[in-house]
């Protein structure tokens, strides 16, 4: 139980530290900051766990190891699976941006065309397309050469894995 409680505590501490940092400083590379603070929280969790529960004798090592791995898993789940995912949704969520745009309009109503034009604080739909293309290029997943777009080795590998996984669901366009 100690591993679990420590993991939740350290994930919360890392999340709060991230939120505080985002308010105290003007951060341009947000994901990098989150990565470093997440890693710091992980080191904190491991050190804290080892301090409370030093590695026991051979006979008890399996139970100790399992509790440690369980704590490690719940730390990663809390920080990446919950906190970073909420950040991703708030920052990049396509449908959520539409909802917040509609909510800002008076009287919370708009035609589809108006919503397209005012998407993401008035930037419009093409903004998303350009930004995502830039992120894919910057991340080394695609390359633009003149009039062609080419997937890099990494991008093509990820694409192939995703195509195979997607076939499992055979969902068409969703």
């Amino acid at each position, binding site marked *: 139980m100690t591993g679990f409680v420590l993991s939740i505590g350290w994930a919360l501490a890392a999340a709060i530290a991230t939120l505080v940092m985002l308010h105290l400083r003007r951060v341009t590379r947000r994901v990098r900051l989150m990565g470093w603070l997440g890693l710091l929280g992980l080191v904190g969790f491991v050190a804290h766990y080892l301090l409370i529960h030093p590695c026991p004798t051979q006979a008890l090592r399996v139970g100790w190891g399992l509790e440690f791995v369980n704590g490690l898993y719940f730390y990663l*789940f809390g920080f990446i699976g919950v906190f970073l995912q909420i950040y991703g*949704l708030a920052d990049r969520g396509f449908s959520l941006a539409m909802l917040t745009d509609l909510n800002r309009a008076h009287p919370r109503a708009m035609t589809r065309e108006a919503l397209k034009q005012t998407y993401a604080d008035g930037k419009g739909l093409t903004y998303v397309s350009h930004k995502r293309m830039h992120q894919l290029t910057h991340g080394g997943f695609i390359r633009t050469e003149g009039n*062609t777009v080419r997937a890099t080795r990494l991008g093509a590998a990820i694409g192939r894995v995703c*195509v195979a996984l997607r076939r499992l669901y055979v969902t068409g366009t969703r």
Partner: protein
Amino acid sequence: MGIQGLVWAVVAFLVYVVLHIALVRTLRPKLYMTGSLRLLLALLACYAVVAWKVAHLRGFEYLNSLLLVASLWVWYMELTVHLLRSVSIGAMMALAQSPGNTMTSQAFEQLHDLNRLFDHRIESLIANRYAIETDRTLRLTPQGVAMARLFTIIRRLFNLTTYG
């Protein structure tokens, strides 16, 4: 956490994945998240009984095992939702399926028709009862207003001023 609780949780999660894939393929649900969540709740209810009566898990190990199934479900949902809806992953999939992993810019943009994606998301918002459309005008439902407010607060918490 003992090894028994871990093994039972992983087995329960794998049962969920198999059932989920089978149901998505056959039913093609319109409300993907709602359907997946209902299936999880049904499986968790069954698993809570099985873990208690068959696996004889007790105390913290019991609770931990249930939490493990729920957390694995969250990862799994994140993966499948990205797979089905992400603009960036869709772009990489389109390129991976084209000869030489290459497309002309025009073909790439046509394939990634954001207007079509936008209309699709609007239909999804309406199906999920976050918005209604009358006389080609979209209006938020109370549920939609609540969700929009929640995410406005979350955006403020993260100090987000632009969209990624």
